[in-house]
């Protein structure tokens, strides 16, 4: 909680800190890191119900494309919200049809879903197809730090939702659904409702992050926006940071993105070898992720 608040506060104050010549670079990198962390937090919300999604790249992309297409007519904020809503709507359809699937079956079904959506966006005319879609910057570029603070806001929203859900009664329903679906139902948990709710909240947040991403990169292609790479990132970060927590995906996202950036600048060619090795070592020596490490340091039992 304190950790999460601290990170968010730091994010808010970052533009004012005396970073010297590194300021712009740090802000740019941080903005992407916030969005990816937000996506990871969103993924983790769904994972709490035991559903391992590979569709979060698609939700991210749906949010990105919707926001990009709607922003000129509706303005930045309504477009972002609608982007999230579009992602949530698709997640409802996906969630309804995959209710009965578990584990890898669910994962592959969601992967299949995102591949199909990507092809549709690729073939559609209004999305710019494979050529790509130019996007206006946030608030039509009126505020230089507008995009940055939008990313901070998205991260804050994702973290808040994650924290609140972790403390709400829904937390128990989600955890029960994950740890034993049949038992949860017999105990009165409306598993269908819980799963769909988690799916929609999660997809909404992923879509929101996608929208801000679009307004930062200014250009979308189906390959970038719907890439499998992003879906995998959304899954790698929570495992790295610590599953089913708020601080885990949050810190994990910031660390993974910073690490990758630092390695790229430091090592240049082949830096991903080191990145892959770090992932392997993390799992071998920190099976509960960063949060597990922190808990162990404190001597606590809970991750």
């Amino acid at each position, binding site marked *: 909680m304190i950790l999460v608040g601290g990170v968010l506060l730091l994010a808010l104050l970052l533009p004012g800190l005396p970073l010297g010549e590194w300021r712009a670079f740090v802000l740019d990198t941080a903005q992407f890191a916030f969005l990816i962390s937000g996506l990871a937090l969103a993924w983790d919300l769904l994972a709490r119900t035991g559903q391992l999604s590979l569709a979060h790249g698609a939700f991210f992309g749906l949010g990105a494309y919707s926001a990009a297409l709607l922003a000129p007519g509706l303005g930045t904020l309504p477009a972002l919200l609608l982007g999230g809503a579009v992602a949530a709507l698709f997640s409802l359809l996906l969630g309804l049809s995959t209710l009965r699937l578990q584990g890898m079956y669910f994962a592959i079904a969601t992967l299949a879903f995102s591949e199909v959506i990507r092809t549709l966006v690729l073939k559609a005319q209004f999305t710019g197809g494979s050529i*790509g879609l130019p996007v206006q910057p946030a608030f039509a570029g009126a505020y230089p730090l507008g995009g940055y603070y939008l990313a901070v806001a998205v991260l804050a929203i994702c973290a808040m939702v994650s924290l609140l859900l972790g403390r709400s009664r829904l937390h128990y329903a989600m955890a029960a659904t994950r740890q034993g679906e049949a038992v949860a139902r017999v105990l009165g948990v409306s598993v269908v409702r819980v799963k769909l709710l988690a799916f929609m909240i999660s997809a909404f947040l992923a879509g929101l992050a996608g929208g801000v991403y679009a307004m930062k*990169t200014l250009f979308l292609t189906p390959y970038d926006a719907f890439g499998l790479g992003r879906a995998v990132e959304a899954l790698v970060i929570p495992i790295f940071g610590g599953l089913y927590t708020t601080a885990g995906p949050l810190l994990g996202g910031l660390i993974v993105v910073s690490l990758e950036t630092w390695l790229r*600048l430091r090592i240049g060619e082949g830096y991903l070898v080191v990145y892959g090795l770090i992932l392997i070592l993390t799992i071998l020596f920190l099976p509960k992720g960063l949060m597990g490490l922190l808990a162990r340091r404190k001597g606590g039992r809970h991750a």
Partner: protein
Amino acid sequence: MKKVLVLWVLLLAGLALAQTTVRVGVLLPISTVAGKAALNGVQLGVEQVNAGGKVKIELVVVDDGNTPATAVPALTKLMTVDRVDIVIGGLASGVTFALSGPVKQYQPLFLCIGAASSVVEQAFSDYGRFFHYHPWDYHNVAAALEFFKYLYENGARRVAILYEDGPFGSAGIQTYRAQLQNQGYTVQAEPFKTGSGNFTAILTRFKAFRPDILYWIGYDVDALPIAAQTRQVGLEPKLIYGAPPAWPVGFEKNRLSNDVAGMTAWLPSVANNESRRFVNLYRRKFGEVTDEYMAPMGYVIALSLGRAVEAASSADKDRIATELAKVQMDTPFGPLSFKPSDTGRTRFQGFNQSIWLQFQYLEGSRRPVFPANRAARPLRYPGNY
């Protein structure tokens, strides 16, 4: 003896005074083939320039990761941390487009090495420090169409187009189709997914169409499967014409490459002085010959920049830009000078369709076959597939 030494010292000091030093950012996808080749070319060119003694170019190289999410912060770092005024980069169109925002914000002199998409031309249309060396996509179309006109005169009537459904393959496809039809061709076009390696079904479909030319627009990974499977389904076109950004290593040794034609901006066998010089220098530095035209492209950018800096004898980006706009030089691609682009959207366009040449894989190597003034061999048409 002493006098000579003093003279030497004075001379060196004088040289050092006259030397202009500029820091240049390089932003390329260095883990891709084209990006690596481009970087090699730039480095080779910079070595040349620095060896001349009057100009000293220092490079700061950053990987653009071939994705906007990496490229945008990388550019920011070049501009604010490394404080460069000049950036060489912009290989992929999507990435370059995404860079248009930050470029306008930081106002560097941007020497663009690739990014053929006219979407990029539009994005940079109001930016005065944008020097685009590579031809635009409409140049590419024009060059290919000239070749098709020649083929039509040789009796070709039906074209089957296989294009990958990404930004590279589908960018100009509507224009291509319309233009070919204008020339009198019957056209059938089919998209495919690059790297899938499975073309038999689509090629089978083409069989009923009996194309004279099988024209594919894809990547190096598709070259061998298409050449092999065309034979395997018995399509028997009179020409396989490919337009990938690069060809696979070792393809020329494969018998299946025989008679396959393609378009490139440059071949190591191109017979002009600059090209020969480049090949020699490249071989000396890297111990091999490159087929990638992005290598001489990077080389040309570095050399032209060197000239402009020398002429400006200043590290000021606007004075350098003014001089660069006046540069006229011979390059491995032919003469280079900057003019407004054909659409008038950007002010400094380096090369146009005239650098493209058509080649054919013949007896284990690529030989220019068109246009006639640059051909080393006559085109083999119909080819044997």
